[in-house]
């Protein structure tokens, strides 16, 4: 049996996460095997350090679900978009492919869109397999 992918989805506390919770009454957002949703206080709080930590702890891919353009109260989505684009380039030098870091923007009501995005991301990452990250015991 093949291993389930391990995916972390960071969701904004003020838009998509409440939407997800409401919709979760009849469908658990963590239903997809290996997918963990983490609430963050703004997509701007999802620092590159957190993304790297997810990879170090075994994530195959990291997805950011932030607010659409003009809908973030703090302009955090604009900052994080730039950080994620730069982070993809930096992590590529470590051998972590840019496709493992995804970001997309969702309003509160767009749960169906999020679920579709997550499913597509899971499919893509499953095909890619685990990220190339060195484990402590491999360092000798």
């Amino acid at each position: 049996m093949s291993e389930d992918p391990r995916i972390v989805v960071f969701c904004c506390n003020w838009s998509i996460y409440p939407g997800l919770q409401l919709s979760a009454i009849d469908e658990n957002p963590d239903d997809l095997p290996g997918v963990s949703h983490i609430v963050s206080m703004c997509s701007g709080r999802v620092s590159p350090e957190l993304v790297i930590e997810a990879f170090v702890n075994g994530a195959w891919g990291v997805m950011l679900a932030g607010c659409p353009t003009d809908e973030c109260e703090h302009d955090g989505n604009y900052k994080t978009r730039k950080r994620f684009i730069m982070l993809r380039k930096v992590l590529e030098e470590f051998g972590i492919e840019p496709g493992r870091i995804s970001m997309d923007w969702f309003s509160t009501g767009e749960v169906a869109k999020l679920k579709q995005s997550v499913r597509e991301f899971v499919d893509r990452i499953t095909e890619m397999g685990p990220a190339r990250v060195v484990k402590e015991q491999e360092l000798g």
Partner: protein
Amino acid sequence: MSSKPKVAFYWNASCGGCEEAVVDLAEDILQVVEAVDIVFWPVALDFKKKDVEAMDDGEIAVSFINGAIRTDEQREMVELLRRKSGLVVAFGSCAHIGGIPGLANFYNRELIFDRAYRTVPSTPNPDGVLPRTSSDIDDDELTLPEFWDTVKTLDQVIDVDYYLPGCAPPPDLIMDAVTAILEANLPEKGTVLAPRKNLCDTCPRSESKPDKISIESLKRPYEIEADPEKCFLEEGIICLGMSTRSGCGERCINANMPCRGCFGPAEEVFDQGAKGLSAIASILGLEKEEELTDEDIERLIDRIPDLAGLFYMYSLPSSLLRRKKL
């Protein structure tokens, strides 16, 4: 027999600058040698490994060990010094966070040997000879220590009590550390013996820095003549003061060069490279960030080659990822 505390200095994967830093104490070094006995210092004194081996465990009061660890011999020496020493201080960037030698963690032994001994134009080696741990020459065995795939910080190999950061540590911090050790006035184990602030906090250019900086185009230091009064970021030059610990005396800034992070992460920073990246990306095109497309952002970023090498210039072995997986 002398009752003065015994002190050792040792070097590993380093450039010799940390040894120079001790000499840079100038006249102050006289105070140091008056107060302590230097029992081991390969660069300056003729004591041997066997002299250290002959000592009792814990007999050396403090060993100042510089350099990163990347060979079996270095591990053996630092394990010996750890056993013989009451305190071990990781001295300088390479021992503290990996330093410049740590950039080798983007490669491995095979790639490094291939470059250094086969493909580099300045080394003729038609037979493709590579270093080996054992070679038989005229019935004698010659040995070399094993060269590791991964460069490590000192505390990834032995227990470390304190850290003196910097490339190299400045004389005032060295003297402060020596004084604190002699007076037994030391902070909690594991402390970095330097200020807790980040470099931007103490930068002489922070006074004139505007409240909001927006980098419209990234520049490399050689591309412009930087204004010695202005914050480097204002001019589009990446400076890592925001993610780096202060205490260096702003030596690079005062020489009109941006910070590259040799003092290691500021307090509460887990990954110096990622934090620097985050800060620079945030102010990139800040003024009209809502109008930028992803392609615009890529274009702004692509002005700088080897971003990972820049953001992790000194801290790769101590970063969250530690190395590239090959």
